[in-house]
């Protein structure tokens, strides 16, 4: 078996989620190759060759791959699987917005069904994945010659970043469908830890009342070294940006500590955080469903409780 892992990166840094994806690949077993498709991504390749367990890094460095346009990158991946290396038994990517954008396109080109967001590897052809917002766990077996899989990174502890020594192979073909072009990207700048990697996450919901009040959560988060998230209600109301949404269709997080502030706890929100190790809920409504999943619940006005919390830690 040989597994092709698609590296997640921004042409400069190899994203940490790639290490979780490699961990899933290691559980499947066999040779692991990593594809770095991008432009001017030499530093990413350097990082990828050091990942333990990876035997080869394929580098496709072309303008067409600079912004991970799926029309081009999926064609590259499918061709690597079909034409150049019929050795691949699995193609894995992290279930990020980028992985979700590209991999189903690869699966369709290979005429196989994808297995989305696996949380465990039962055997090389059988995997577990959540359905119905995590209210059920399906065990799915694939008979595809090439299994195309996205990996929910919270289900797999990352491998260490250094210690390996993979070989590098360059892939020269440029696939450019010519149907899509990149216009721009506006990325949120934050000094706080990335939500999906943070050990502690503080999230706010409709109870925050407005965007300005999130300053109370930022102050607490900075004391704790935490990332800051939000419920869909808070994002829809325009309090904060969409990249902070935690939930079934937003980001899935599983930190050591999740602090839900002014969040009622709709099942769609719980789907994004209920695998956190310890859950704290602060809400003035003692009937709020969030208390049913909380390890520690505090019925209180968040505007009193959060500043006090910040002072005490």
């Amino acid at each position, binding site marked *: 078996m040989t597994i092709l892992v698609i590296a997640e990166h921004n042409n400069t840094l190899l994203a940490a989620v790639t290490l979780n994806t490699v961990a899933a690949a290691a559980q499947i077993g066999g040779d692991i190759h990593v594809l770095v498709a991008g432009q001017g991504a030499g530093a990413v390749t350097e990082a990828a060759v050091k990942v333990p367990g990876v035997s080869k890094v394929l580098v496709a460095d072309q303008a067409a791959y600079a912004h991970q346009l799926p029309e081009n990158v999926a064609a590259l991946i499918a061709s690597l699987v079909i034409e150049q290396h019929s050795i691949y038994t699995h193609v894995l990517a992290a279930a990020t*917005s980028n992985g979700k954008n590209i991999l189903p396109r690869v699966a369709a080109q290979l005429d196989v069904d994808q297995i989305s967001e696996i949380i465990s590897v039962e055997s090389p052809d059988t995997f577990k994945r959540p359905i119905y917002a995590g209210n059920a766990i399906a065990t799915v077996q694939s008979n595809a010659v090439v299994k195309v899989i996205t990996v929910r990174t919270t289900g797999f502890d990352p491998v260490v970043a250094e210690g390996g020594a993979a070989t590098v192979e360059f892939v020269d073909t440029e696939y450019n469908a010519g149907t899509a072009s990149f216009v721009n990207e506006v990325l949120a700048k934050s000094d706080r830890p990335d939500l999906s990697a943070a050990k502690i996450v503080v999230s706010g919901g409709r109870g925050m009342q407005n965007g300005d009040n999130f300053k109370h959560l930022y102050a607490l988060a900075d004391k704790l070294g935490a990332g800051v998230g939000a419920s869909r209600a808070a994002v829809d109301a325009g309090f904060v940006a969409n990249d902070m949404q935690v939930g079934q269709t937003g980001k899935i997080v599983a930190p*050591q500590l999740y602090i839900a502030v002014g969040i009622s706890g709709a099942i769609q929100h719980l789907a994004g955080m209920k695998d956190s190790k310890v859950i704290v809920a602060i809400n003035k409504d003692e009937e709020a469903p969030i208390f049913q999943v909380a390890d520690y619940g505090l019925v209180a006005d968040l505007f009193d409780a959060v500043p006090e919390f910040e002072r005490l830690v």
Partner: protein
Amino acid sequence: MKVMAAVKRVVDYNVKVRVRADGSGVDLANVKMAMNPFCEIAVEEAVRLKEQGIASEVVVVSVGSPGAQEQLRTALALGADRAILVETDDALGSLAVAKLLKAVVDKEQPQLVILGKQAIDSDNNQTGQMLAALSGYAQGTFASYVEIREDKVTVAREIDGGAQTVSLKLPAIVTTDLRLNEPRYASLPNIMKAKKKPLEVLTPGALGICTDSTNKTVNVEAPAARSPGIKVKSVAELVEKLKNEAKVI
């Protein structure tokens, strides 16, 4: 230009599903069904394009059981002009659905196909991307803004780090995210009118599509339950518990 929107009949988003004891799936008997929320956003966007004079016709299509006619009638009440149901009682995988939609796209030749980014039952997030691959079209997934100018569509996409904008040649595929629009409610007169709008029923066989999947669900189980927590009386007690009991701060 013609715009197509795809809709899926799913368990209503407020329902907390129960897993069957024999591991064969979730219990859908007597459970409220509805249009997948992301598909409502897709229909709304298509109807708005018609109201702006950009789309000349809005066709809604669904793949599913005869019951899905209910969701197609809802889409017609929201403003779609006509509906197509590819009828099957089989629980199809995303690839089969994408192949069936591709067959309908070949027949109908829409310039833009709008789908929900994900169905809230299977949580796959695949069909739109697969339809784009099979059609050879460009894709704008997780859209929060869509604008059509001449032969191109500009799509603002919600991505993990923020927002990305891409420009796609038409025909193209768009999948909706939550912030694209706020779907309207169907008015009673429109619900009545929708009953008279055309609804065509096709079958996978008539479209010549094989719907086999490479995936097989071998078991469905309930997730591990969390052990019940406690209520603390004060912030001081909370901080003490987090430090000394849970040891997470």
